C-alpha cells in the first residue's frame, strides 16, 4: 500500500472522530517505492483538503504531509514532534474554531458526500505536470487554483453543508448562516440555487427551510 491510497475520506473520518490533527508520512517525492508516484497524488489531496478545511472554518494546519525515507528515523521523529507541538498550540478541534459538535459533524459529513465529485474535479482539472513539492505548493497558493476552487467547489460545498444540516431538522436562513459562518446574502444565494435544483424547499408556515 502506498501513500497514494490515503484518501480524502480517510482524513475526514479521522477529524469527524474528533482527532485534533492528521499527519501523513510519505516517501520522498520522485522516489516512490512504486512507479505510480502516488505521493504526488497524496500531496494534491492534502492541498485540496486544507483548502476545504479553511473553507469550512477549520484550521488547515491540523493536516500535514511530510516526505521521508524509511532510513530517516530522526527526520520522522522531528516531523512528528513538530506537528504535535503545532496541534497542541492550535488546541482542541472545533472548540477553538468556534464550531459546535453538530455543526462540525454536519460539515464533515457534507464534505464526505462531495468526495466522488472532488475526484472528478481532480481528474478533469487538476492533473499537475510538476516535479517538486515547491511547484505544487506554488500552484495551490496561486490565484489560478483559488479561482478553480471558487468556481468548482465552493458552492457545491456550501449546498452540501446546507442539505446536511437540514437532514437533522429544518432551519431558518438566519440559523443556517450562523451555523456555517456565511454571510446572509451568500446563504440566500445558495438557498435559491438549491431550491431551483429541487434539493430544498421553503416552508412558509414555519418560516424555515427543509429538505425537499
Amino acid at each position, binding site marked *: *500500500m*502506498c501513500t*497514494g*491510497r*490515503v*484518501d*480524502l*475520506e*480517510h482524513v475526514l*473520518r*479521522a477529524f469527524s*472522530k*474528533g*482527532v485534533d490533527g492528521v499527519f501523513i508520512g510519505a516517501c*520522498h517525492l*520522485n*522516489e*516512490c*517505492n*512504486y*512507479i*505510480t*508516484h*502516488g505521493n504526488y*497524488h497524496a500531496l494534491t*489531496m492534502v492541498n485540496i483538503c486544507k483548502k476545504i478545511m479553511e473553507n469550512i472554518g477549520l484550521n488547515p494546519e491540523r493536516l500535514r504531509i511530510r516526505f521521508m525515507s524509511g*532510513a530517516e*528515523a*530522526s527526520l520522522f*521523529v522531528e516531523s512528528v514532534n513538530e506537528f504535535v507541538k503545532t496541534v497542541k498550540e492550535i488546541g*482542541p*478541534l*472545533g*472548540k477553538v474554531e468556534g464550531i*459546535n*459538535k453538530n455543526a462540525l459533524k454536519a460539515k464533515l459529513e457534507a464534505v464526505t458526500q462531495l468526495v*466522488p*465529485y472532488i*475526484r*472528478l474535479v*481532480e*481528474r478533469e482539472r487538476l492533473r499537475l505536470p510538476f516535479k517538486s513539492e515547491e511547484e505544487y505548493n506554488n500552484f495551490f497558493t496561486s490565484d489560478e487554483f483559488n479561482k478553480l476552487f471558487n468556481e468548482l467547489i465552493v458552492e457545491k460545498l456550501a449546498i452540501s453543508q446546507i442539505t446536511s444540516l437540514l437532514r437533522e431538522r429544518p432551519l431558518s436562513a438566519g440559523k443556517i448562516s450562523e451555523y456555517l459562518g456565511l454571510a446572509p446574502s451568500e446563504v440566500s444565494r445558495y438557498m435559491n440555487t438549491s431550491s431551483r435544483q429541487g434539493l430544498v424547499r421553503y416552508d412558509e408556515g414555519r418560516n424555515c427551510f427543509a429538505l425537499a
Partner: protein
Amino acid sequence: MDYERLLCSTGPYQGEILRASDLKHPHKIAWIQCVGSRQVIEGGNSYCSAVCCTYTQKQAILTKDHDAGAECVIFHNDIRSYGKDFERFYERTEKLPGVRFIRSYTSIVKENPETKNVTIRYSTPDDGVKEEEFDMVVLSVGLNPPADVLDLAKKFGIKLNPHDFCNLNPVNPMETNRPGIFVSGGFQGPIDIPESVFSASGASSQIGELLDYRRGILSKERIYPPERDVSKEDPRIGVFVCHCGANIGRIVNVPETVEYCKSLPNVVYAQEQLFSCATNSAKEITDMIKEKGLNRVIVAACSPRTLEPLFRDTVREAGINQYYFEMANIREHNSWVHSKEKEEASEKAHDIIRMSVARACHLEPLQEFDLPVNKAALVVGGGIAGMTSALSIANQGHEVHLLEKDTELGGIARRIHDTLEGLDVQAYLRDLIRKVYQHPLIHVYHDTTITGATGYVGNFVTKVKSDRGVTEIKHGASVIAIGVDVYKPAEYLYGEDDRVLTHLELEEQITKGNEKVINAESLVMIQCVGCRNEERNYCSRLCCSESVKNALKLKKINPKMNIYILFRDIRTYGFKEDYYREAADKDVKFIRYEPEDPPEVKAVKDGGKSILKVSLPDYILGQKLEIDADIISLAAAVVPSSATKEVAGLFKVTLSPDGFFKEAHVKLRPVEFATDGVYLCGLAHYPKFMQETINQAYGAAGRALTLLSHDIVIASGSVCGVDENRCVSCGACITVCTYGAIEFYDTPQGRKARVNPVLCKGDGLCNTVCPTAAISLKHFTDEEILSQIDAAVPEEEIIQKIEAAA
C-alpha cells in the same frame, strides 16, 4: 566499535551515551580518523579501511539525535564518501550545527586527571597549531583480517595476499586458489555491507554452477491442511502479545495488555509469549487456533516486514486462510521509541492492538496465484556485468538472451588497458567475450533497440529489433546491466583545446604511445570534474584511482615528467591506497583545492610557445600557485547512461536521486529491483571497479537463479478488484496505473475496467481516483482502513471530547 555499542539501545547503558570513567554524558566529542589504517608503521595497515569515514558520519548524526547540543569534531585526512548516496550523507553531516570537520593530523596530549577530559593537538592552515579539550575521543580504527586467519588459511589451503586477506583472482574475486572454495564479504578485503551482500549472493551463484545437477532433489513440497471456510462465522479473534525477550516486555506491561485484549469485542482468546517467532510459540498459536476455534489471529510484536510471512504460514498450518492474520507492531512503533515513557507506551500498545482488532473483523480470505516461470533470462547490456551474469546463469542450465545496443560486446572496458593491480583488461575481455559467444545457451543480439516490454515476474515478453531482425523474447527474469556514460566536460577548455583530455582518453593515448603525451614535461590532472557538485551530488568513485593509475604509468615511461594531481579528497579506498602512496613516493605532486576556489586553466602564449596555465590557491603555503602544463587530464564524472530513463520505463523500475538505477534495498537487496523478477548489476547501479562489478554480476545471477530454478512463483492476494456494477467506465484508474494492470473489457453492460491481478502491485492509488469506489484494493479496503481509524479514538474519549467542546 565501542562507541557503536554505546549508541545502541541494547548497549552497556541502554543506549545512553556515557563515559565509562564517571558515567557522565559527554557533550564534546572528537573522532580521529584513519587510526591504524593508511599507515606504514609497525602495527598499522597500509591500506584504507574503506568504511570508517562513513560510519563516523553515522555516529556523529546519531550523537546529535541523542543530544542535539552535542559538539562533534571529526579530525580527518581525506573524506572518502565514494559509495552510493554517501556524498549526500557527508553533506548532511557537515551541515549539522555543532559538527566540525577538521583536516589535520592529531596527537593526543594528555588526559586531565580530574575532569577525565582529553586534550588533542592539531593544526589548521588558518590558526596554526592548536590544542583543544574534549569530553570523549573516539578512534576510528580500521578493519583487520580475522584474528585466526593464518590458521584458517592453512586449514583450507587457501592463499592470502600481503595484507593477510584472501588472495583474490582479479577476474573472479569470489574464487580462491582452491576450486570449490569461495570467499565473500570482509575476507575479500575491507568492504561495506552492500558489497558483502553482492559477493555473498555471487558466491552462492558460483556454488550453484557446481551443484546445479543436484538442485531440488532434497526439497519436499509443503503440504498445508485444507482451509476451513470461516467466512460465514462471526469473528473469533485470538491475540498473542509478544515480550520479544525484553525488547517489548521491559517497556510495555504485557500481562496487563493481555487482559485489556480480552476486554475487546470479538476477542475470544489472548495470551502472552516470550518470543512469538520461536518454533514452540508458532506451534502454540496453531494449537490454540484449533482448540479455541479462532478464525482470525493477531500477533502483537514487531514489524510485519520481517515476520509476517512466518505467522501467515503459522495460521495456514491451522487451516485458516493466511489473510486472516494481522500483525500489530508494538516494538518498532512503540517500545523501541518510547523507552522512557513506559506507561504511555502500554497505553499506546492498547491503541495499536485495538485498531488491529477492529481491522481484523473486516478481513477477507484471499487466494494467492501460482504463476508458471519461464526458464529463460534476458540480460540487457553486454559489458562485463552483463556478460558475467549471462555466463553464470547459462552455466546453470538456463537459456539467456543477451542484448547489446552496440555492434560489439565489451562496453566501457574496451577502452581500459589495464587495472591498477596490473590485470590485462583486454586479454580478460577477449576471453570473456569468447566464452559468451561459445556458450550454446547464450544468444547474443547486437544493434538492439527494445521496442516494448510487457509481462510480469516469471513471464516477461520483450520485443527487440536487432541484427537478428524483429524478435519477441519470452523470459522469466530480466537483468539490467546497461552501464554508464562518461561526462563530457564543459569546463577547463575541454573540447576547445586538444591538449585537454579526459582521464579515459589519457589512458588511451598512453596505450597508443602518443609522443605528445608521453614526452610531456608537465602534466596536470584535475579531479572531480562534473560531479560532487550541486547538479551531480555524488562521487564517481573510480576517477581517483584512474588518475593514480595513469600517473604511475607515465612515471614508468618517463620518470622525469612533472605530474600534478589537483584533488579535493583522494579516494583510493581499500588496497588502492598502496598505489596512492607509491605515486606520492615517485614524486607525483598531490595538491588539494576547494570547490569554492577551483583551479583556473588558460591557454597563453609564452615566448612563442603556447602553454596551458593552471592556477589555484595553495593551502599549505598560503599563496597562489601557477603551473605550466603541456597536457591536462580531467577526471570526468561517470554519469547514468542516456538509456537509463527509457529502460526504467520499459521494465517499470525506479531510479535513485542521482539518476542511477535504484535497488530494492541498499543493504539487504542490493542486486534486485523492487519490481519482482528484475535484477541489477554493474555501473548501471553506481560507479564501481571491475572487481566490484564482477561480484555484483554474479550476485544478480544468483538472485535470478533463485527465481528461475522454481517452477512457479506466488503472487500476492492483496491486489485490486473491480465491482463491475459500480464501474462507470471513466478510465481514471487506468490512467494512474502506470503498471498497466487495468484494462477495459467489453461486457454485456458496456465497457468495464478489469484488473490483471499478476500485474497489480497493490499500491492502491487507483482506489483514490475512482469516483464510484468501484475498484478496491483487497486487504486494504476502505472498510478495513476506516474501521482502524474509528478504533484509533475509543468511543468514551470522543464523547468526552465532544462534551468538552460543546
